[in-house]
């Protein structure tokens, strides 16, 4: 047999999909389509999704729904009164407010209707208000966890305990990559300038858990190399490296020919890809080619590397290049005692860039198949944490029973609100959306049945939504 043909033949489809980080699909797609791969599970076919990629603007620390999206004008006349016990319902609170007085603290900011849909959004978020016709605001989110790390872990991995694959890895596993020069799943982090809250960004928030590790999110960093080990060491020039790598490929090809292990062919490709990434990543991170009016859309912070605004712009550039899942995480929403002082700053830092991202995607025709998600891990209490008479130090405690998130693009119905909280923004009153429902809906938008995308580990089929979750059909167009 001709050695070249043999060489080509050895990269079987199965082999390439099972190990390599990129390709048209992955082992998961094979398992979704192939009943045999699951054995006991009548795996159905996938259906065409409306979204091809996701940008998740994760707001670490739990944004207060009371002051941003959940309009409760009726609360004003109850200011300073005790939250009725019937509303509180004997709930276990955090030790910060358990057993203390629970005086109702209405929002200090005005709400006004936006767009044709007339969705009420607080004056803290005027830019996000301006995209309300593109966005589906969910006002009935709820979760189980009451502390940050478990709640974030639940939202991003489907379990409060670290170790499960995160949403982006599931999508990488399920859908593969659209780009062979950049990772399928990228994560970026930023925080408020005042560093008012100390929620740590754990690596497992973008980890692949028990999925093969090439599905884990690649952290794009705000300092140093954007991707770890991207740069050649000083004194090693790229042109020389190129020539040496060509010789490395020759050595590997000889070995491949001799031993016939298809893994070697994959390795040759990965080294090629690494070399390409050394050019494509700096190109991606170089925003100097962006026209001024685009930079202006994202606001003054956009030129500061590592800021939320910069990351939003980078997210658009990643989406343009076909990166499947971009996970931005911005910390600083944990206003236990600084609602009057810090919340406005926090909103100012995130409002304009979030809205700009949606607008920018839209003007490029990318919003149709890019799903943008904005939300945190839980909400905050309607009652005041701290002394209600000390107006400078008003705070709000953690609140898992009701909060707000929104989605835009990717086939989500724009200009709508879904679900309702009760009059106190304390309990879900209508159409509750549990975190697992939220996840099921995201997968659905990407054309994946959340009950079918599974991975066998320690004796059972695992999935992002665990054994729960229902697609929220009314918000899907």
């Amino acid at each position, binding site marked *: 047999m001709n050695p070249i043909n043999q060489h080509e033949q050895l990269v079987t489809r199965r082999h390439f999909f099972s190990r390599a980080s990129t390709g048209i699909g992955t082992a998961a797609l094979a398992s979704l389509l192939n009943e045999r791969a699951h054995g006991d599970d009548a795996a159905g076919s996938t259906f065409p999704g409306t979204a091809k990629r996701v940008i998740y603007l994760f707001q670490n620390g739990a944004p207060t729904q009371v002051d941003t999206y959940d309009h409760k004008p009726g609360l004003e006349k109850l200011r300073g009164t005790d939250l009725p016990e019937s509303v509180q319902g004997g709930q276990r609170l955090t030790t910060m407010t358990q057993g203390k007085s629970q005086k109702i603290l209405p929002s200090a900011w005005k709400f006004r209707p936006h767009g044709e849909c007339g969705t009420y959004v607080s004056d803290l978020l005027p830019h996000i208000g301006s995209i309300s016709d593109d966005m589906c605001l969910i006002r009935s989110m709820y979760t189980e966890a009451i502390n940050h790390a478990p709640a974030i872990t639940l939202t991003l991995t489907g379990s409060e305990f670290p170790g499960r694959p995160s949403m982006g890895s599931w999508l990488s596993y399920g859908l593969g990559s659209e780009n062979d020069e950049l990772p399928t799943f990228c994560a970026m982090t930023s925080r408020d300038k005042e560093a008012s809250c100390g929620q740590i960004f754990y690596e497992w928030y973008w980890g692949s858990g028990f999925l093969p590790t090439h599905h884990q999110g690649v952290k794009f960093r705000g300092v140093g190399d954007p991707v770890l*080990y991207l740069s050649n060491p000083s004194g090693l020039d790229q042109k020389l490296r190129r020539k040496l790598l060509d010789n490395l490929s020759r050595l*590997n090809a000889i070995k491949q020919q001799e031993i016939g292990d298809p893994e070697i062919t994959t390795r040759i490709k990965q080294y090629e890809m690494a070399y390409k990434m050394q050019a494509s990543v700096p190109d991606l991170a170089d925003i100097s080619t962006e026209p001024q009016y685009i930079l202006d859309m994202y606001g003054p912070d956009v030129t500061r590397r590592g800021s939320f605004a910069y990351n939003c712009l980078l997210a658009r550039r990643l989406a343009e290049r076909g990166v499947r899942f971009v996970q931005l995480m911005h910390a600083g929403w944990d206003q236990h005692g600084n609602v009057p002082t810090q919340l406005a700053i926090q909103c100012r830092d995130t409002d304009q860039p979030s809205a700009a991202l949606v607008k920018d995607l839209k003007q490029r025709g990318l919003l149709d198949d890019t799903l943008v998600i904005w939300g945190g891990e839980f909400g905050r209490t309607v009652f005041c944490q701290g002394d209600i008479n000390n107006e400078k130090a008003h705070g709000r405690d953690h609140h898992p029973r009701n909060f707000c998130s929104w989605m835009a693009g990717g086939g989500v119905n724009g200009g709508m609100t879904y679900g309702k909280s009760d009059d106190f923004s304390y309990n879900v009153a209508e159409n509750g959306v549990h975190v697992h429902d939220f996840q099921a809906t995201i997968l659905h938008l990407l054309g994946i049945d959340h009950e079918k995308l599974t991975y066998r580990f320690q004796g059972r089929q695992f999935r992002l939504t665990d054994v729960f979750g229902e697609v929220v059909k009314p918000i899907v167009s």
Partner: protein
Amino acid sequence: MRHRFRFEQHLIGTFRISTSDSEAVTLDTPTAPPQPVLDVLVIPAQDWNKEQRELVFEYHRRQSPQYRAATRQLRFNLCELERMQGKFADTMGMRELDNPRETHILTLGKYDAPQRDNGLISHGVPASLPPLPEDASPNRLSLANWLVTPSHPLTARVAVNRVWQQFFGVGLVESPEDFGAQGKQPSHPELLDWLAVDFQKSGWDTKRLIRQIVTSATYRQSALVTNEAQESDPQNIWLSRAPRYRLPAHVIRDQALYLSGLLVEKQGGPSVKPYQPPGLWADFSFGKIKYTQDSGESLYRRSLYTFWRRSLGPPNMFDEADRKLCSVRMRRTNTPLHALTLLNDITYIEAARVFAESLLQTDMDDQQRLAKAFRMMTGRHATDVEKEILANSLQVAKEHYGSNIEAASQLLETGDRAPAEGLDAVEVASLASVLNVVMNADEVISKE
């Protein structure tokens, strides 16, 4: 009367004669208690409060030489204790409660809502497996004994499978963490059982087991993948060839350190903090936790000793278990990020440079050096074609650095190990840049 006070120019203020019935009277004997004790002594003893009593008694005890010696010893021992405690790490132990506490089922782990209606639950082993001996008390010790009892082969099968996996890349049971009904069937059930029973009978002799595996005809086959084998057994489940797989990241690092001669083979001791790109810890922890890199030999210990923070493991240890859920399977992926790590991590650049220096310190010529390096990296001699490729690489590198001497010196600065003296920077940089890349050859980073 003689004045023997050492400050002989001092005048005597008050002259007083004291008498004693003590046998060993010296000038050091305190003649009177200190003032605070005297102040108490003028009070009748029955009126002393607790502190006053303690003051007088302590003064009295201190008059005894035995007591003073004992306290000196005590102080010394306390210091020793402190020193020893600092030296040895604490380790957790387990002890059964005298009265075991009541335990109920916690549905979905809800610790505040025990299922009291379902009654108490107690220790035991799965009903599908042989029971605990009747006379065994249901505790950890019984469980430990039961695990290795010859009446069931499960533990031995699991153990044997793990060792097999270590050598063949995949276990005889592909799901090493799951031998239950949901796990994979063994590919060679008789072999697994034979090895398991033999392992039990040998007194759980791991060395013997390993010897059996590595001296077997199956293990010593060629790794060659024939067309036929690729078609009929692409994943080598039927073991028609020897295993071949990429080494784990920690082994690749150890190997690079070994090749360069940098490896410090010292055993034991606390974890070490080798190279890591700056700012990683500070970044994830908002500056609260900073990584302080070690220096000297700590940089070159085996990867086994590398400090591992669970929230952010060492970044160059790709594909390793992430320390969240128990994981006994080997993970092997093949991504461009791994390539970047092995090409650009300071660990590997420095290793290549020091490797180059050690070769240049011999009186071999370039060709011999490349041949030796290749042999050390792969365990075999290079073929003529391979030699030609290596020679070409070195020539290209020499041409480059010959006209970029500054770049050559820069490359030599990489890593904490000072550049070897008396060597030509262009020579070192050229050979180092070649070795760095060749150390990435599939054959070098694969077990074959």
